[in-house]
Structure formats: C-alpha cells, structure tokens
C-alpha cells in the first residue's frame, strides 16, 4: 500500500516537472470530416474516408520513402509535432443532417476545421454553418460551381469544378477532330457533332447539364437531347430510348454509382453504339463500376482527377498509391485521391499558419501555394483565389479524362486527356457492348 502511494507521488511529481512532455504527447488537432458513409453514395464515401485516413497516417508519422513534405515529419512541425485527429461523421446525403453534424463538430468536438462533404447540396449547408461560426472549411470533392460563387470567407475548394471538367470534355472532342488524340487519326467533325446528355437531377447533375448546354453552344456542337433523370429511378429504359432517338455521336452522362451502372446495362440491352461514351466522374469512376460491368466498361471515357497511370508520370503518386493499395486492396480512385489531397491541404495550411486560430488559418489559406510536385493528383498545385468570381477556388487544379481499357486480364483507367499526358492509344470509336 505504501509502495503504491510512493509510486503515485513520484508519478505526480514527474508530471508536474515535465509538463512540456506531457502536453506534446497529448497535443492533437481535430479536423471534422463529413462524408456520405451510408445511403446512395456510400461506395464513394468509403473511398473518401480511406483517402483522408491515409493522408492522416502519412501526416502523423515520418515516412522516408514518400517524397512529400508532410511525410518528413511526424505531426505538424510548426505546432510542436501535434497530431491530426479525424472525427468522422456520416451525412447520409442529407443536407439538414450535414448542417447538424457540422454544428456538433464545431461546438461539441471543438474541431479546428472541417473537411468534406462530397454532395454539393450538403457542402452548401455545412459551408453556411462554418460561415456563421467563422470556422474554416476545406472542400475536397464537391464540384458544383455555385459553391465558390457565394462569396464565403471561410470556404476553400481544392478540386476543380464542373465548369472546368466540362470544358475539358469539349477540348477533348475538338482535339479528337483535329487529330490530337494519341493513336487516332483526325475524326470527321460530322461523326461527333450530335450530342445527347443524361444527367441525374440533383444539384450536381443539373449544373453539369446546364454546363454541357453552354459549352455545346460555345464549341458549336448540336445537343440533340439533354435530359434529367432521378438517380434513384429503378428503370431508365425511357431515358435511354430518348437518347438513342437523337442518334448521337457522343453520349454524355452525370450519374452516381447505381444509376451509372443501370444506365450502362440499359444501353447494353438496347444495343446502343455511340462513337463516344463519356461520364462526368462520380459513378463512372467508382470501383463498383468496373467491378460490376466488367468488359462492358471497356472504351468508356470518364473525367477524373486520378488514375493509377498517373504514377507513370508522377513518382509521388505511385508511392502513395502503393500504400493505399496495401491498405485498402485497390488503387486510389478520383474520390480517394481528392480526399487525400483535401486533408493534405489542411496539413500544409496548418504548417503555414503555425496556429489553430481560425483567423490565422484563414490568412494561411488565402496566401498558401502548394507546389504540384507535392500532390498525388496531376495538378499544377494548390492556390486559392482571393478575388474574382470564384473566391476560395483552387486556381491550379486540372481535370483529366480517362478511358477504361483492357490490359491482359485487368481493366485499367488510362489517361486520354490532356493529350500530352496520354498513357496509351485511345480506343476509338467506342467498341460497343
């Protein structure tokens, strides 16, 4: 009993004498992460979560074999090695729940900032909460252009938005007609001129649909059909019939996972044979897309921000992808790569701010430049706009278009655009189902 009392006293004395040590060990920086972990976009949610958790792991431990500044130190160096702690929440695709969770993270969990939320509709309500509380939010994966047009002071977005992604598509089609695509001779414009688009009708898909219409006019394409559909719809045959009636050269889609798969299966059953089949990311690049459709996905194009082929042109992407594959069992996807980059941006901002005060973080966000070579995604870097129309938008982001191709037994997403980064010859026209 006496021995125990002595030990306790000694422990107390030690704790009093070396408070710095005790503090350094306990120091943590809480980041609230809100993703759709259940509901229609649960598959993407799992990817996002795994991406953010890998970035956290790299930030919190020194990893000599990763060529990234955040892998050199264990924790945030400017904050005495403080570790990043993620507090994960599931918004189920519900904007109201997202806002409630943001309040909980800010007021109850006292997070330094927020990362999320994938669905543009949820990001909007969460950003409004952050704005009211004056808490910084970095958005990694919502692509509605409206988000950076609201003039928020506490909102920054790393990913390019749909405006840029859709413009990439039209640049790609134009380049295809000019013979710029790798391994394909100049395609007569007449073959591609007629377009048909089907976008799911939430905030995101509606915006994509409007952007497609705008760029089709600007690039002088003929958008013969531009319809909206419900992502939860159990049957898409009427929509597909309407698309086929337009006899398009290229079919364009904005779909989440289950509707992207249903759309493809319906196209297959109706023997659709467009020259180009393009999807606006999301469902078209979820791992389930290839997993479910198998060979039927070969030749399909999707805009993305990451394919494992990026490793061929970027060493650090390969290093992180290998780690991810070891942990999760498959390659990084556009969703996980963007979540990784979002949390990475948080780490660099905290290093620059050397503080967890919201005002200091705000200042750091508005002045930071993260070089492109630090990132897994093939962007020129991260720098947020502080003036103009798109306040808080990363101006150094860049989209890509990938194409599913069969290499041996495996289906991989090869880079088709930008043309100078193309990793293999483009498969044109779409080989059919």
């Amino acid at each position, binding site marked *: 009993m006496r021995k125990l009392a002595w030990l306790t006293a000694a422990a107390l004395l030690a704790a009093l004498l070396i408070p710095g040590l005790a503090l350094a060990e306990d120091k943590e920086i809480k980041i609230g992460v809100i993703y759709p*972990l259940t509901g229609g976009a*649960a598959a993407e949610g799992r990817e996002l979560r795994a991406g953010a958790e890998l970035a956290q792991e790299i930030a919190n431990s020194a990893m000599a074999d990763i060529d990234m500044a955040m892998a050199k130190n264990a924790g945030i160096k400017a904050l005495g090695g403080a570790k990043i702690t993620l507090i994960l929440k599931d918004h189920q695709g519900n904007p109201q729940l997202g806002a409630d969770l943001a*309040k909980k993270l800010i007021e109850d969990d006292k997070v330094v900032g927020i990362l999320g939320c994938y669905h543009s509709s949820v990001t909007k309500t969460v950003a409004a909460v952050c704005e009211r509380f004056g808490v910084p939010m970095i958005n990694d994966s919502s692509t509605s252009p*409206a988000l950076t047009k609201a003039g928020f002071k506490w909102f920054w977005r790393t990913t390019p938005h749909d405006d840029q992604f859709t413009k990439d598509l039209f640049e790609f089609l134009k380049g295809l007609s000019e013979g710029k695509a790798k391994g394909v001779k100049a395609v007569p414009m007449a073959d591609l001129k007629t377009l048909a688009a089907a976008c799911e*009708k939430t905030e995101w898909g*509606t*915006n994509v649909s409007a952007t497609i219409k705008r760029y089709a006019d600007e690039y002088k394409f003929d958008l013969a059909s531009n319809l909206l559909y419900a992502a939860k719809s159990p049957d898409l045959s009427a929509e597909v019939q309407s698309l086929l009636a337009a006899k398009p050269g290229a079919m364009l889609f904005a779909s989440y996972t289950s509707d992207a798969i249903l759309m493809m299966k319906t196209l297959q059953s109706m023997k659709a044979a467009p020259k180009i089949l393009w999807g606006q990311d999301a469902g078209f690049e979820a791992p389930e897309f290839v997993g479910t459709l198998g060979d039927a996905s070969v030749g399909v194009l999707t805009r993305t921000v990451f394919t494992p082929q990026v490793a061929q042109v970027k060493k650090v992407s390969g290093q992180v992808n290998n780690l991810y594959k070891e942990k999760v069992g498959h390659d990084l996807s556009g969703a996980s790569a963007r979540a990784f980059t979002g949390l990475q941006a948080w780490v660099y901002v905290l290093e620059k701010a050397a503080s967890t005060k919201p005002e200091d973080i705000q200042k750091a966000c508005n002045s930071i430049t993260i070089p492109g070579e630090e990132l897994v995604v093939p962007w020129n870097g991260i720098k947020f706009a502080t003036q103009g129309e798109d306040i808080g938008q990363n101006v150094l982001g860049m989209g890509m278009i990938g194409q599913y191709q069969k290499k041996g037994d495996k289906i991989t997403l090869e880079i088709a655009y930008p043309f100078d980064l193309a990793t293999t010859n483009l498969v044109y026209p779409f080989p059919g189902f």
Partner: protein
Amino acid sequence: MEAIKNALDFSDFPRLDLSLAGAVFAFLLLFPALPHSSFAMATMIQFLMFSLYGMGWNTIGGYAGQVDLGKAQYNGIGAYTTAVMMVRWDVPFWVSMPVGMALAVGWSFLIGYPLFRLKGHYFSIATIATSLVLKDLFEVWDFVGAATGLQIPIRSKLPDFLYLQFRHDYYYYYILLALFVVGILYLNAFRHSRLGFQLRAIKDNEDVAKSLGIDAHWCKIKAYAVATAFVAVVGSFHACYNFNIEPEDVMSLDLSVLIAMMALLGGAGSLWGPIIGAAILVPLKSYMGDWLGAASGLEGLNLIIYGGIIMLIAAVQPRGVWGMVEAVRARRRGGYAAS
C-alpha cells in the same frame, strides 16, 4: 371565445397525463439552460419540427383517417415562399411565413377537392403523385433556382430576429417551442370543435356520417387545409434554419413518409401521439447514427436497428405507442380500449 376555452380545456385527460405533460413542458422550457451538447440542441429542434409536422398530419391522417403521403409538397411551398421572398425581395420571415402558409393552403384546396373523391389506398397514392409532380416542377423552374435550389444570404449582423438568422440554435429552439405550444393549443381546440367531431364520425363510418348530414368531402378538405398550414409554417422555418433549400431536401418522398410514420408510430388520432412518435424516432435516428455510425465503423447498422424498432412497434400495436398506453389502461379498467 369558445375556441379559446376549448384550447385551454384539458379536463378529459387523466391527472397523470397532465402532470407528465407539465413536466415535459418544464423540461422543454429549461432545456437550453441545462448542460447540453449542440448535437442535443439540433436533435431537440428536429424533435419540435417533426412534432409540428406530425400534429398537422394528425388532423387529416389521425382524426379523419385519410393516410396522406404527400405532405412534403406543402413543406416545400412554405420553404420556397420564404426563401424566394427573402432572396429576391428581401422580405422578412414574419411576412413571408403567413404568405407561404396562405399559398400552401390555397394549393391544398386545389389538390384536395379532386383528391378527396378518392378513398383509401387510392387517396394515399394520389397524394404521393401530386407531391412528386410538384417536386419535379420545382426541379426545372429557374425562378426558384431549379434543382440547385436557393441559398439565403447570411446577414451581416447576427442575431437578426426579423429574418430569423442566428448564430446559436437556442434562438431557433425558443421560436419553435412557441409554435409548438400554439400547435398543441390549436389541436386541443380542434378536437373539441365541430369539425373535429365530424371528422371522427367520418373516420368511424363515412356513410353513417353522411346520413347524419355531414358533408364528408368538405370536412376532409378543411382538415387537409389545417394540416397543410402546420406543415407550411415548419417549411418556412426550415428555410431560415438551414439557409439553403432545394427540392430534394424539402419536398422528398422520404420526408412525407417520415411525417406520416412518426404520427402513426406515436398514435394517430390522439393529441399526444405525434409528439410521442417524434420524441422516440428523432433522437433514435440522430443518436444511433452518431454512436453506431461513422466513428465506430459500423455505418448502416443504425439504419437496420431503426427499421427493426419501427417494425416491432407496428407489429405489436398498430395503433402506435399511445395505443399501447390506452390498451394497458383499458385492461386495468377491465374494459376495452377506446378507439
């Protein structure tokens, strides 16, 4: 005068019920002063919102026995009226809310008149259809922001009572609590009113009610309008509380079903039923999502348990939790439960 007397007349409830209700009200009044997390506050706000939705639904679904699964359309009309008036013409909440309520009630007359020619399941299906059609229209109507919806700009100075913009949730809480009390008093008057008795007669046997000279069609339309007014007010509140609305959020079928489910689970056709339903389901949904959700890596399990509890209550007592209470009381009295 008669209505005010009726609103304050709770004498037909046992003393135990009134004591419990008084204790619950005292708790609700003091809640913001008690130590609580902001998530608990958000959950309480949801509880009050769904209680009000449920009280409204109870007039048509409970007292009149017409299972309405299209209430979200009126929530949408209320929310959109407030948002459009605020965003486009800078009109305060206290003006836009009654306008939204009037528009929703007007729309309910237009919809209700033909719909109440239908009965039973046909009526329920028709309410779903009208709600979904309106949602589809809003999704392509540019004036209301189409599928992107509307974002209410945050005012430079908070709190702002005119526009219902606050940094802290307890302001919203007390405004909702005031509406909640008004709702209970109104419903208490409603169940004692001529219309209340007529509706219960229609629910028990419509043909007999008609033979007694009750205009069943008109009674149902009136009850439908009352239900609509409740839902539209909450819709207006929702727009200010969330700062952002879009059709999928305020007019979804999920919301319509949830409103009906909470009232049915608590006990449709009773004054306390919808409140009990919301008090069980709202915290259950919120907290199970939080405890068994993302943090524990068991996401999805909360939804399975949530669904299981709903099925269990529905199987054990189709008349909801209040039905169970009444059954126990009837057994003690040695008689049958009152219907």
